[in-house]
């Protein structure tokens, strides 16, 4: 029963179930998922294209190439807080590792991301940004971001079981992080002394790398990318430790 075939079945089944539950009962179904980033895109384009012009070429493509990965990241973290507490009945089953819920959630959101990739490519093409060879680095970015997301989600989900305001803290933090991450602006435009903010923050590095390979069609900054990768692994391991240590208490607290 603990074979890898079983685990694969389990995760895949839960991912399908997750998807199904999201869009059941909504009239436009899965397209709803796209509505959020598209509307954000429209607002940003209007704001920083016309109201406070940043004077960046092909602004919509510029923004959208980083917006989709960001949506993957933020959705995962926002739902992570309630993952354990709302799936109490699953966790109370023996032989079920709550950790699986995090994996399932991350993968489900990733699938939604990939599903809308064609739209991104379409928008890029509108502005004559075509796919280059560097697109092959895309899976690597997904991998690093996935590790980081899983690590953070584990920390958030575990802690939210005991301290229920983690959820609010995360919401606020994500909101602030949105502005601190160069999604809708160029970090080069900022003076050098703030550089540290953008090179030490792994999600900022990842976002920029996405933009490099998708929008600019050039290789990412390998050194900062590696650094981000190491930080992601550390966060993931730390999250795992935290989760393991508190697992028995989670059972009691739920």
């Amino acid at each position, binding site marked *: 029963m603990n074979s890898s075939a079983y685990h694969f079945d389990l995760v895949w089944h839960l991912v399908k179930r997750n998807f199904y539950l999201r869009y059941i*009962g909504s009239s436009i179904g899965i397209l709803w998922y796209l509505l959020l980033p598209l509307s954000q895109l429209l607002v940003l384009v209007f704001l920083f294209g016309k109201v406070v012009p940043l004077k960046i070429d092909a602004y919509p493509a510029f923004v959208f190439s980083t917006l989709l990965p960001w949506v993957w990241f933020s959705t995962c973290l926002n739902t992570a807080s309630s993952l354990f507490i709302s799936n109490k009945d699953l966790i*109370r089953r023996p032989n079920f590792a709550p950790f699986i819920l995090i994996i399932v959630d991350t993968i489900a959101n990733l699938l939604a991301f990939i599903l809308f990739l064609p739209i991104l490519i379409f928008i890029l093409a509108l502005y004559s940004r075509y796919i280059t060879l560097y697109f092959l680095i895309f899976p690597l970015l997904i991998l690093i971001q996935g590790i980081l997301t899983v690590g953070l989600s584990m920390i958030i989900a575990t802690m939210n079981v005991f301290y229920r305001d983690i959820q609010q803290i995360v919401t606020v933090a994500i909101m602030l992080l949105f502005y601190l991450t160069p999604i809708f602006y160029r970090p080069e435009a900022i003076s050098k002394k703030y550089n540290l903010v953008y090179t030490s923050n792994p999600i900022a590095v990842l976002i920029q790398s996405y933009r490099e390979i998708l929008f600019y069609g050039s290789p990412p900054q390998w050194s900062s990318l590696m650094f981000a990768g190491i930080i992601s692994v550390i966060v993931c391991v730390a999250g795992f430790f935290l989760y393991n240590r508190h697992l028995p208490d989670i059972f009691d607290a739920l």
Partner: protein
Amino acid sequence: MADNVSKCFHIQRNRPRTIREAVIQRLTGRYNASSVLWALRDVSFSVKQGTVLGLIGHNGAGKSTLLRLLCGLGRPTSGRIHHTGNIGSLLELGGGFHPDMTGRQNLKTGGILSGLTKRQIKAIEDEIINFAELEEFIDQPIRTYSSGMYLRLAFATAIHFDPDFLVIDEVLGVGDSRFQVKCLDRLKAFRSAGKSLIFASHDLEQVRSLCSEVIVLEEGRVVMQGEPGSAISCYHDLMRQRSEKRAKQIYKKAPSNITAEQGSRLGTQEAIIYVVRLYNASGETTDSVFSGDGITIELGYRLINPLSDMALSLGIYNEKNVKCFETVINSTNAVFGILDEQGSFICHLPELPLLSGRYYINVGIYPPNWDFVYDYHWQMHVLYVLDKQELTSNISGVVSVYPAWSVQARTKELNK
């Protein structure tokens, strides 16, 4: 197998549920005392392969906690749990079921969560639907199901997999009697296949028919472990003591129209014992008897509210409140048939081997499940037991046994 397992839940009042509270508590140095609830204390037992172990006890005795620990959910505060082989469980029904998904989809979810692969589920899918008798509704969302249908589906899904060791928590009461019979048959099949089974239940008939061994839990401790019959009577005993204790706390003293110099009487008075008479061997009322003689006790009862069945207890206690003897009838219907509105229970004790002294006859009538008490007389009826013969030694205790002492001369061994 559980080895000396104890489980303590710390119930903290005002536990900080948010970080803000935690910080404030630390800053103001205000730690609210946490009270400790020991759900289990020093529980040890082992289950051999192929046996069915029943777990009975009052609500809150710790049965569910123990079963969950056995399945690995949560960690014992002290002690160890170890097992060999695969453990499966039926602890809560319908975990992972979502109301908007169809019965079939939920069946797949339940099956996967129980440890089956997709292939295995496909193979037994029809068997499960059949068992639950839900062929027509299986493709409808389960929010349209009645609670009975929901439970049947959950149960059928959960029971169709194949562990070496199955742990069940009080979920066998679902469905109509036909369905229950099916479930029991399936569990019996488990048992014949040599698997081990632990289950907690309030249904004593199920326990009696399925189990080879029963553990009685009371307030988190194992009170007895043994064969079903005696364990069940032990359980009844404990339940009765609990109701008596509760009755003392809740009910005020009923006005007594039985002359009694002391003692107390409690109960809801839906049925009352209005007189207690003692007769000796010649048929005269008396309040004293020689030790070893027989005695007849008459309990005159009257039903205030119409009742169909009662349980009855009669006990003889000494002055130190030690129980010398007790007789209990769990259901007067079963023994006497339907009761009249008024009548007498007559109990004849052919011999009363009690030492001389003062004893109390405590009688009580209860509803058949011993939930509370209709009328209980405590220390209201006195019985004096007198010595029959001269004693050469001092005797104390409860039972009258007349020892005969003598001396035997020892043959002298000559020193060699």
